[in-house]
């Protein structure tokens, strides 16, 4: 069989049509399916570079740093009752649709640490390489930042450290406790009221993206 003689333009058009036809089957968006580099993730977890200590996060908030986004994974009611200042409320199920950029530093927390660890895994799998968890979640935030306590047999260095922690605790509306080895049960702890509302960028205002103009 002899092929009809085509001009270069007709050949290119035929190639484009062919590519277009094959493209009908294409899945150019990643969708909800992800790929994991298990070895890399295991290494990250083993080196303990996947989390931020509550005290470190507190220091960032005091400094007013804005180079990260803090996500509260609990329910809206729990968020309304108390949340770490500057946190945005994103229930775990809504994380997939929440406007985040892959080059942002994302800090996650939940009540304990389980939900945030699960969310961390989901984000890392989707290529959010700068995702971190608050170590110990809100419970640790409560114990270490809001209501830090000093053991009775503390040394001088621990005391100096405690002074600073107490200042930070006051900043966040909590208070330091002296001497008590066993702190009051968590249920009795009154969480500080959010009097001065901290800036909480809602989901309606994602970070300003760079405007790019394109055209002929």
């Amino acid at each position: 069989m002899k092929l009809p003689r085509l001009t270069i333009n007709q050949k290119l058009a035929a190639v484009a049509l062919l590519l277009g036809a094959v493209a009908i089957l294409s899945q150019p968006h990643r969708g909800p399916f992800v790929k994991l580099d298990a070895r890399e993730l295991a290494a990250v977890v083993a080196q303990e570079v996947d989390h931020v200590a509550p005290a470190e996060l507190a220091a960032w908030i005091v400094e007013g740093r804005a180079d990260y986004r803090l996500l509260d994974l609990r329910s809206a009611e729990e968020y309304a009752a108390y949340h770490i200042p500057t946190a945005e409320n994103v229930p775990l199920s809504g994380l997939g649709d929440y406007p985040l950029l892959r080059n942002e530093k994302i800090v996650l927390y939940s009540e304990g640490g389980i939900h945030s660890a699960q969310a961390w895994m989901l984000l890392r799998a989707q290529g959010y390489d700068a995702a971190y968890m608050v170590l110990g979640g809100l419970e640790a935030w409560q114990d270490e930042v809001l209501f830090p306590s000093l053991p009775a047999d503390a040394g001088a260095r621990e005391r100096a450290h405690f002074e600073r922690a107490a200042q930070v605790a006051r900043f966040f509306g909590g208070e330091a406790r002296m001497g008590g080895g066993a702190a009051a049960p968590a249920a009795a702890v009154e969480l500080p009221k959010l009097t001065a509302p901290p800036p909480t960028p809602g989901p309606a205002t994602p970070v300003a993206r760079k405007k790019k103009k394109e055209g002929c």
Partner: protein
Amino acid sequence: MMTPLYKYGFFGEEFSLLVAFALGLGFGFFLERAGFGSARKLAAQFYLYDMSVFKVMFTAIVTALLGVTYLGWLGWLDLDLVYLVPTHLGPQIVGGLVLGVGFVIGGYCPGTSVAALATGRIDAVVYALGIFAGTFAYAELYPAIKGFVNADAMGQVTLPEVSGLPWGLIVFAVVVIAVVGFWGATLVERRFRSEP
């Protein structure tokens, strides 16, 4: 074009400007090579005896469309990181008409006028002054027309999202429209060339 690389942090702000410069040079070079540095060639589009503008632009669209689709499919390009201009339907139709009228009157579109300016055409100098005057007038008028400019905000939408059709089908449809369009354009050229 370089947005995904930029956002992944492969290079910083300064280097991105260099990349933009290189891309701009390439863009200008190909505009000039396609003959678009001449207002005559561009005006011929509107007299329908030379459909080069239509063909070159639509070829660029189809090439980019197929390229992006396949790169995304192979997993080499994350389409979620590609910046999309937000859609404002009404204002963009009006804006497109304003640009079109300017195109017909001046014989250039913004990109080609700069390419023509680089080759030293006097009409392009006048056109560039017009661009500056227009930009200035728009900036001055902006407070008055702000409501309209920001109307119909639909966000960063794409045809697959609006139509509900799969991405691949839209790609194929655009390619078919382009090929049929090229064929039609060639017929139109023949007709209007023979009747000067």
